[in-house]
């Protein structure tokens, strides 16, 4: 059934059809309405779940981990400072192998206070062992929640999953969203059945100490699980497409990259806007395509290397800067392609920080700059590796 709903409402519907047994959350703009809608579903009886009201995001995550340990599916949602407050428990959820699914409304970190779209909050949690996916529209959030449970709860994975939706661009924007039938979701998503759970018939102690002679192997297994999730994601996306008719392609999605020499790359809603820019540039005769990075963790290493072998030049657009050294996605792509034997021309564009609006023309300007740089560089190295797009410097804009 198609409805015009906000990203937060779509999130609530996505959660509802996955039927988690425990939901623990603390409100923060612009995430708040997600849990309000879920609370409505629980109140009207359409979702049978225990809603745990907690005193902080740290407690919300702790409650989800504990509930997962009893062998049930859980959900939580947060944003920015709430996610930062969860940090310790994010490590715990991953290493305890509790596949919590969480939606984060990507919002800028303060100060100065800002409630608008920015990816620093989730990127800062890169190394906690969570699967991280970025969505470009409300339909994708809903669908990715369903796929995330399936991937995260697979016994080869058993890692938590973080889904990201841009503040306001998705959270509070109403779009037409198809809410899938419960029967279809039940067919796609099996029940959660962990090997180890709190059970008086088979008692275990959880979270015990491990000496240096074995800690290393536990960490290695998280790395292995993350690797395993790549193939399972590709499979889940395919199965989802067959069942629901919506194709999310895999860890990345390529748009109009056939015969493309130039690529614009990004995550989140700016990818959606960039599709219009690509269509216009194609109409104008430019050989340019788009790559959407859906999965930031695990990182699509193989896909990036394959891309590097075909492409002349890539503009990496990011709603975040990793203080001290370039944008995080730029660094990841550099790292991925370095040993591949291919050296596309890479340039980093910082854009849309703190909800600065990204328009179709902005994306086209990025491409035009990349084109100029690539053609001007005779050694294949950009004159300016980093571009703070639209930054107002001395003399104003």
């Amino acid at each position, binding site marked *: 059934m198609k409805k015009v709903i906000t990203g937060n409402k779509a999130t609530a519907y996505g959660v509802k059809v996955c039927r988690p047994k425990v939901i623990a959350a603390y409100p923060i703009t612009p995430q708040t309405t997600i849990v309000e809608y879920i609370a409505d579903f629980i109140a009207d009886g359409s979702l049978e779940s225990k809603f745990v009201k907690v005193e902080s995001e740290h407690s919300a995550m702790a409650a989800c981990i504990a509930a997962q340990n009893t062998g049930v599916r859980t959900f939580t949602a947060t944003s920015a400072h709430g996610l930062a407050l969860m940090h310790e428990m994010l490590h715990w959820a991953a290493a305890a*192998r509790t596949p919590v699914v969480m939606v984060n409304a990507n919002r800028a970190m303060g100060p100065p206070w800002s409630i608008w779209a920015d990816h620093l909050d989730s990127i800062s949690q890169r190394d906690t062992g969570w699967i991280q996916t970025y969505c470009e529209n409300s339909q994708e959030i809903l669908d990715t929640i369903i796929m995330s449970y399936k991937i995260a709860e697979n016994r080869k994975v*058993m890692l938590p999953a973080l889904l990201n939706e841009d503040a306001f661009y998705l959270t509070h924007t109403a779009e037409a969203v198809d809410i899938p039938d419960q029967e279809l979701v039940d067919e796609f998503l099996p029940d959660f059945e962990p090997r*180890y759970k709190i059970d008086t018939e088979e008692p275990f102690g*959880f*979270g015990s100490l491990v000496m240096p*002679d*074995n800690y290393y192997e536990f960490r290695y297994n998280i790395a292995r699980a993350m690797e395993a999730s790549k193939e399972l994601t590709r499979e889940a996306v395919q199965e989802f497409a067959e069942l629901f008719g919506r194709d999310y392609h895999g860890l990345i999605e390529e748009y109009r990259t056939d015969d493309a020499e130039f690529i614009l790359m990004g995550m989140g809603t700016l990818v959606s806007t960039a599709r219009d820019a690509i269509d216009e540039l194609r109409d104008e005769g430019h050989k340019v395509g788009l790559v959407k990075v859906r999965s930031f963790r695990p990182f699509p290493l193989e896909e990036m290397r394959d891309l590097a072998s075909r492409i002349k030049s890539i503009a990496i657009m990011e709603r975040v800067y990793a203080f001290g050294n370039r944008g995080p996605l730029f660094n990841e792509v550099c790292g991925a392609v370095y040993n591949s034997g291919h050296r596309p021309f890479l340039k980093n564009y910082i854009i849309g920080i703190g909800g600065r609006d990204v328009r179709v023309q902005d994306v086209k300007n990025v491409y035009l700059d990349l084109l100029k740089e690539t053609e001007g560089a005779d050694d294949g190295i950009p004159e300016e590796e980093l571009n703070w797009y639209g930054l107002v410097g001395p003399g104003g804009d």
Partner: protein
Amino acid sequence: MTQSYDEITLTPITNRDSTVNKTGGWRTLRPVIDVEKCIKCWNCWKFCPDMSIIINRGKELPEVDYDYCKGCGICVHECPVDAIVMEKEV
């Protein structure tokens, strides 16, 4: 002993409780109770942080569980009639 990454459990869990960890080996001094002096106030039982004072129900007397007693000496400190003394292990 190091187990391979294929042998260890998914998450660090244990199916053994802490009774297998006999902490009595940490002790250098051991509490010894003089049952003649004991007035059965049970202060030693109440204050022992390791539940290592056992009440012998038959004799109605306190006894030390040397498997787990770490030799902290709190029982000696709390005994109102000085019925417990610390003695060298060796």
